[in-house]
């Protein structure tokens, strides 16, 4: 059994995310009424950003407290992976939200997606984990770091893709009237392109680490196979757009499918392979 002293911080962080989620919906409702980026919209956005950043800081505390207690970072079991992604997805989305005002309405898709992880982490036993000796490797940081940026950019793209699809739902179009489909599509794919860069970096760092840790850089274990498919699907998505005139909604579905694949890679493979990587014993 664990003495998970980090739980209050985790709950506090998630509560902040919960309020930010409500504000995201409030934002689009205001936007639908005023049909322009009005002062109430802006102040709602500022409040949302504040809550998001608070959530990130509280989750950082949760991770820090746990790290201090166990003596190693949140890299091992599913509970730790989810908790640390909640932190990094929130952090990078907060940065993007702050710097790219045009995509702020996508918070109505992004925050519920973050909540998939949030509600999942609450159902898991925060059991203590053991840090395998092969994890004492600097490439771990590079691999995990790039992986976090990759998933976050994928999430942003998925948020924009979600808006493209929601705009088509009768009655919801008014919520997202401030941008055209084409502009949303372009922005979503740009984030996918950035995601591809970081995904590639993550795979390279992972291969170097695997060579050090297990004496092979690639072995088609569950995680590697799934990660390769994700990388390839981004490449295929980008190429399909180059070769064919893909309707914007189909493109949005492709982005969501890629996000789904990435999601399974991160959080699904621990289910059908006992450790994150097979080599961990």
């Amino acid at each position, binding site marked *: 059994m664990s003495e998970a002293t980090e739980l209050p911080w985790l709950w506090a962080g998630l509560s902040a995310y919960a309020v930010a989620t409500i504000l995201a919906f409030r934002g689009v409702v205001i936007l639908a009424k005023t049909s322009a980026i009005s002062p109430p919209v802006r102040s709602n956005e500022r409040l949302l950003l504040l809550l998001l950043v608070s959530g990130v800081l509280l989750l950082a505390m949760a991770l820090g407290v746990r790290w201090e207690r166990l003596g190693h970072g949140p890299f091992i079991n599913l509970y730790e992976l989810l908790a640390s992604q909640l932190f990094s997805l929130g952090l990078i989305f907060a940065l993007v939200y702050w710097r790219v005002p045009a995509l702020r309405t996508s918070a109505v898709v992004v925050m519920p997606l973050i909540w998939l992880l949030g509600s999942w982490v609450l159902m898991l036993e925060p059991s203590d984990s*053991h840090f*395998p*000796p*092969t994890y*004492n*490797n600097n490439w771990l940081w590079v691999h995990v770091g790039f992986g976090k940026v990759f998933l976050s950019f994928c999430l942003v793209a998925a948020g924009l893709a979600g808006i493209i699809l929601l705009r088509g739902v009768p009655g919801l179009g008014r919520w997202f009237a401030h941008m*055209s489909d*084409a*502009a949303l*599509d*372009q922005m979503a*794919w*740009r984030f996918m*392109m*950035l995601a*591809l*860069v970081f995904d*590639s*970096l993550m*795979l*390279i760092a992972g*291969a*170097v680490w695997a*060579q*050090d*840790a*297990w*004496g*092979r*850089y690639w*072995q*088609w*274990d*569950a995680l590697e*196979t799934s990660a*390769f*498919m994700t990388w*390839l*699907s981004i*490449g*295929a998505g980008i*190429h*399909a*757009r*180059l*070769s064919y*005139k893909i309707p914007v909604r189909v493109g949005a579905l492709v982005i969501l499918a890629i996000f789904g694949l990435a999601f399974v890679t991160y959080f699904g493979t621990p289910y059908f392979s006992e450790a994150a990587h097979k080599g961990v*014993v």
Partner: protein
Amino acid sequence: MMGRLHRCGRMLASTRLTLVGMVLLAVGAGLSYGNPVTTSVWVLVTPLGLLSLNLFAAILVQPRINRRGGLLMFHIGLLSIVVLAALGRLTYYEAHIELLSGESFDPANVIEPRQGPWHMGELDEVEFVQGPYTVEYGSALKRGPTRSYLALPDGSGGWREEVVGDDTPLVLKGYRFYTSFNKGFAPILSWTPTGGVPVTGSVHMPAYPLFEYKQDNSWTPPGGSEIKFWLRLDTGYTEESAWVLDGRQASGVLIVNSGEQRLELQLGDEVALAGGRLRYEALNSWLGYKIFYDPTLKWLFFAAILGVVGLARHYWSKFDALSAAASLDSASPTTEKVVNR
């Protein structure tokens, strides 16, 4: 003639073919999951070959790719990775070995060696001596760092020490020796056949502490009948607290079963068995290594880095150009023309 060649090249360079190759590659990757022995390597080689041809043709004839530095660099990186990985498979070498403390590495003792048809390494020239090793364990048998002490020729007739373990392999002549979780004990025995000369050898017991409960093995001496061994160890191991596995600190009683006889041997004990005499000389320990050789590793890394740098450069200039265009667009309120950028 030239026209037809050109058309052929254009078809081969088509980005629609790339999509076909990518789908086939995804299927191949799915089939390769877990490296099943029944899956042929061709499920990967075929799509990779097709994609390489496709890409090579595109680099030659498609200005959309060969006029854009970053994009070109990225795709050349991809092509190089495929070529290098193929070279790697042709030249690789992989094996396992179990080394006793005090034993010199001898390529004749490797287990399950596999190699590519072009492997031309110099495993015969690899020289080192296994020294002692330690493995730290936390409570509940959580494995911590492994430290293996090796003696290597220092090039001037003497020896130098090197410590390897976990993420730090021994690298000699391009061969990488990784310590594995596989390690255990080995009683050293002498067998003197009736009227013959004594021979000394070791019996490797199953991995420890993984098979702590079944430290047994058997051996049939030349001219004798099968002898069953069971090693009752005292290594200081407990479930509850941290502990260090160190062959030098361990001792063990060797229980010998031969025919109807059952004997307990302490170190130095000698017994008469059917066909000869057996002496329990010493208790040693062995450590398992994975041996891996692939001369392309460094180049693969460079090719991959070259590729991402190219991709990053491509997007940098592309996004720059797009934002410049967007600010121009917003200055003159024309209709939107942001398709597929």
